[in-house]
C-alpha cells in the first residue's frame, strides 16, 4: 500500500509541477523555487505532515518535501537553541541531501566528460 500511495502522490505532485511549467512557460528554476518555498510554509503549518502520512516517499522525495524538512529543522532547533537554532536548523537538517549532491556532482565531473568532448 505504501508503494501504491508513493507512486500516486508523487505522480500528482509532479503533474502539478508540469501544469505550472506548461502554463507559465518559465525557466524550471522558478518552479523549483516556488516548490521549496511552498513546501517550507506547508511544513510550518503542519499541513505537509498530513500529506506525508498519506503519500510516504511520494511526499518526501519531491522538492516540496525538501522544503518541509527545512521547516522541520528550523522549528525544532529554534525551540531548543533560540535564534541560532532558527538560523541553522533548516540548513543542518537538509545538509545530507545538499552535501550528497555536491559530493556526487564533483565526483561525476571528475570521472565523466561533458557531452561533445572526447
Amino acid at each position, binding site marked *: 500500500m505504501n508503494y501504491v500511495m508513493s*507512486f500516486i502522490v508523487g505522480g500528482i505532485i509532479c503533474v502539478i509541477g*508540469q501544469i505550472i511549467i506548461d502554463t507559465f512557460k518559465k525557466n524550471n528554476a522558478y518552479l523549483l*523555487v516556488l516548490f521549496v518555498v511552498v513546501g517550507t510554509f506547508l511544513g510550518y503549518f503542519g499541513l505537509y505532515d498530513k500529506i506525508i502520512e498519506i503519500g510516504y516517499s511520494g511526499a518526501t522525495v519531491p522538492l516540496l518535501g525538501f522544503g518541509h524538512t527545512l521547516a522541520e529543522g528550523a522549528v525544532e532547533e529554534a525551540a531548543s537553541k533560540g535564534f541560532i537554532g532558527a538560523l541553522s536548523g533548516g540548513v543542518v537538517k537538509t545538509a545530507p541531501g545538499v552535501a550528497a549532491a555536491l559530493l556526487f556532482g*564533483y565526483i561525476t565531473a571528475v570521472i565523466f566528460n561533458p557531452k561533445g568532448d572526447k
Partner: protein
Amino acid sequence: MKYDKENYKQVVDEYTPKNKILKNCVWAFIFGGIICLLGEIIKNIFVSGFNIPENDAGPMSSVVLIALSALFTGLGWYDKLGKVGGAGTVVPITGFANSVVSPALEYKREGLVLGTAANIFKLAGPVLVYGYLSAFIVGILSLIFG
C-alpha cells in the same frame, strides 16, 4: 510580420497542440511516480534489510537517489529521461541533484576550481537561497508564536 516578445509568445501558444499538455502530464505522473516509488523501495530496504530506524532511512534513501541521479546525469541518460518525463524528472530530489551535477560536468572545461566548483550551484543556488531564507523566516515565526 515582426515578432516582439509578446506576440511571439502568442504565436508559440497558437502552434502548441493543446493535447500536448495532457500528454506531458501523463508522462510527468508516470516518471514522478516511479522515482518516488523507487525512493520508498530503497527506504524499505534500509529499514527491513539493515534494521535502520525509519527516521534515518528517509534521508539515506534520498542520498541513494541523488547518487543514482548523478550517475545517470554523468552518462547523459538523465537529460534523455527528462525530455519525456518533464516535471516528473525535475520536481523529485533527483531533479535537484541533476541541477547540481549538470553544471559541475558542463563547466569542467574551465577547470575543476573555476569551472566545476565555481558553477556547481549555478542552477540549484536559487533553490538553496529561497529555501534557506524561508526556513529562517519559519524559524523566527516559531520563536515568536511558540
